[in-house]
């Protein structure tokens, strides 16, 4: 048994359109995207810059305004939730951002950062402290971390702190926006394994946004590939990351160099074969 979708998906995004306005210009970042995430499932969102993958995460979190389409969380329409209703969703829906430096307020101690979501929801100080220590343990950081400042930690450790902050309210879905792409390779591997362990321990679902097919292959059950605001391919991890159907996904796969000279030479030849005679290929 693998963790696959139950009957009703936890998150159901249907035909989502998001426009960004800059003065008189409108840029359509998402052009009707649909996806689902089941309980305990990790769904990957792969694409390059400008593909709209981060915008989708932001729209789900309520950080980007939705033009049309719906987002349902556990059956509830959360597309245009604002104010108190949106804030009450914080118990179930959390985020881990890419930048391990910008995502923690440098003027607060780790303890204050982790307790903030709890005290904001009315949890008492003592209870909050206990939860914070428990979550630090979840992310394999020592309890004395609470009295220290983010600047004292490395990128990987900061990302663990950011994960702990996402976990303190015991959410059901965490949107992970490129959470490992700013980390060193060996740190990256450790943080990915941490994400998997936490999912097994808590049953949380992930929407895992990444540009790296290798990362997505290791952590996700299903993968959606985004290109210029559209979802061009969705399928089980094994198929999408090994034997993609859509030409763009194939191009993406062949473009990421593999750490093996012989196989990379072969991959490069196939990639050059895909290249149209004049300039870069169109998918």
């Amino acid at each position, binding site marked *: *048994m*693998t963790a*696959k979708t139950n009957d009703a998906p936890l998150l159901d995004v249907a035909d989502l359109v998001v426009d960004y306005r800059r003065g008189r210009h409108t840029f359509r970042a998402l052009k009707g995207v649909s996806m689902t995430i*089941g*309980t*305990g499932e990790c769904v990957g969102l792969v694409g*390059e*810059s400008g593909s709209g993958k981060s915008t989708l995460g932001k729209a789900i979190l309520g950080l980007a305004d939705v033009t049309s389409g719906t987002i349902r969380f556990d059956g509830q329409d959360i597309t245009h939730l604002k104010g108190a209703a949106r*804030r009450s969703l*914080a*118990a179930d*829906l*959390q*985020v881990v*951002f890419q930048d391990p430096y910008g*995502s*923690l*307020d440098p003027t607060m101690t780790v303890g204050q950062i982790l307790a*903030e*979501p709890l005290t*904001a*929801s009315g949890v008492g100080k003592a209870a909050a402290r206990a939860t914070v220590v428990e979550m630090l343990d979840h992310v*394999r950081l020592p309890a004395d971390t609470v009295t*220290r*400042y983010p600047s*004292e*930690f*490395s*990128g*990987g*450790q900061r990302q663990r702190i950011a994960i702990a*902050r996402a976990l303190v*309210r015991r959410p059901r879905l965490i949107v992970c926006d490129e959470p490992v792409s700013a980390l*060193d*390779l*060996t*740190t990256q*591997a*450790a*943080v990915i394994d941490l994400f998997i362990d936490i999912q*097994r321990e*808590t049953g949380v679902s992930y929407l895992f946004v990444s*540009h790296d097919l*290798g*990362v997505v292959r*290791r*952590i996700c059950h299903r993968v959606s590939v985004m290109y210029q605001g559209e979802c061009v391919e969705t399928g089980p*991890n*094994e198929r999408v990351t090994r034997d993609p159907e859509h030409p763009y996904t194939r191009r993406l796969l062949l*473009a*990421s*160099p*593999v*750490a*093996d*000279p012989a*196989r*990379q030479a072969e991959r490069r030849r196939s*990639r050059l074969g895909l290249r149209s005679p004049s*300039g870069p290929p169109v998918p």
Partner: protein
Amino acid sequence: MTDPSYPAPGGGAPAQQRLWSRFLRRPLGVTALAVFLLIVLAGLFAPLLAPYDPNLVDFSLTQAPPSAEHLMGGDSAGRDIFSRLLYGARTTVYGAAVACLVGVLLGVPAGVAAGYFGGLTDRICSSISDGVQSVPGMIVLLIVAAGTGADFTVLMMTVGAFMAPGYYRISRSRALAVRKEPYVDAARVAGLTHTRVLHAHMVRAVQAPVVIQSALTAGVAMGMQTGLQFLGIGTASTPDWGQMMNDGFRTMGTHPLILLWPSAALGLTIAALAFMGSTLADLISVRTEPVSRRRKRAVAPDVEVVPATGRLEHPVEDSALRIENLRVTYRTPHGDKQVVRGVCLDVSPGEVLGIVGESGSGKSQTVFSALDLLPAEGHTSADGIWIGGEPVGDLPRAKRHALLGTRVGYVPQEPMSNLDPCYTIGHQLTEPLRSVHRLTRTQAGERARSILRRVGIDDPDRVLASYPHQVSGGMAQRVLIAGAVAGKPQLLVADEPTTALDVTVQAEVLELLRELQEEYGMALVIVTHNFGVVADICDRVAVMRHGRVVETGAVEEIFAKPADPYTAELIRASLDDTESRDDLDAAWNKAGRTVRT
């Protein structure tokens, strides 16, 4: 699970020192603070400290010179100047405090709200702020003085209102910057109300700049206040410095001391505030402390010397770049830190050398020092550096830099930040061609066009006329590569040239580098953290860790049989061959544990 970067307690920089304790270690700041506190205390305890009633008239004291009983002598009405000065400090400090308080109360909340919410709030607040600034302050102050019977507190509140735009602007710009930080988004997702976000994160962010602004504002307010009093606006019963100056001004020719005392007091107070402000500003903008002069003079870096690492493959005369036993040391207030600890490497013409390692391995520092591009705090020592078979290690800086663009090309990591946004790409490409290669404007333009075509840009004229922000990151990197190879260098050094790019663009850029390298027969040194890039383009590779070369060898050998366990770990950490989540879950289930759904 092992995270090599963990744990770091105790190591590295000492625990973050609070601003306060760092402030106390600046002599200038401490002196200024002490002087200012002394003035505040003098004003506060004036009734206790003043030897005489400041308004007591003693005709024998009229314009008297300083004496044992009257330290600063008497003014033209026969009052004790020292006592009046103490009481005047009281008025001055009180007035400045009122002005700052009003300025903060009006400016900071409006600025934070405008920066945080943006849109209409921002437009309304900014218009009001601009409006206030365009009102002639002195005239309004005179009107207010006339209307309120020269009520001092009301006057200073008006001064404060005119100071509010200053507070408004710094709060708004800080809030605008912090608004874009992911931690504010994270706080909103965590369910914090706007009020709470403003309170918890914004107020913290604006605190320090507001304190600095207050030091400056207080000085300006004191100046305006004294000016008003000098003009005779204010209550005659309470002594103040402006009145005293006015008195001194009238007898300046005969009794200059009467003017000197209040002027000196005002000057000293404002100077103390200004120095406190600038010391604080210094501490906040520059996080590291300057190295003391004593440390700067130290000649030999006092760090342990470890044997050189790495292997040299080619004789000196056949190498395009050769580095022997390179050490790079950074001077910090906490001692010297050696970031490159004895590195040897070389590359021959037509060869591609990869320098691979994680952040902090010293890979970029190695190439920077080879090109003499280290920042001023960096100190290089080496047994020798050769470029094109010639020793360059001892050449003066100007001659080293003359090699760049002619014999050595350099491709940086961040294409966008390495192009000046103020100039067109055409200008930035042709300028070095004209100054270094002495080409005419037409020749340089022609050369730039052909080289852009060579790097795969089909419409060079459009790109040449564009500003950097008008082209994509991949295009910008092509432009920088074009610039680097325009002088037909023998050696091209690329520092993480594709890290900031999408993978499909990365593949194209690597392809381009390979083509150019083969076409020109250049030696290419490519710094990267990505073993995929190494496998794609490199002939040889040097693996670095903690400032040392752990392993050097031909790419095929390194991948097939890594000699060092760290190399093996890095290759394993490249995830393109990783087990998929399905494999991992299957193994997990097989081990008798179930996956929660």
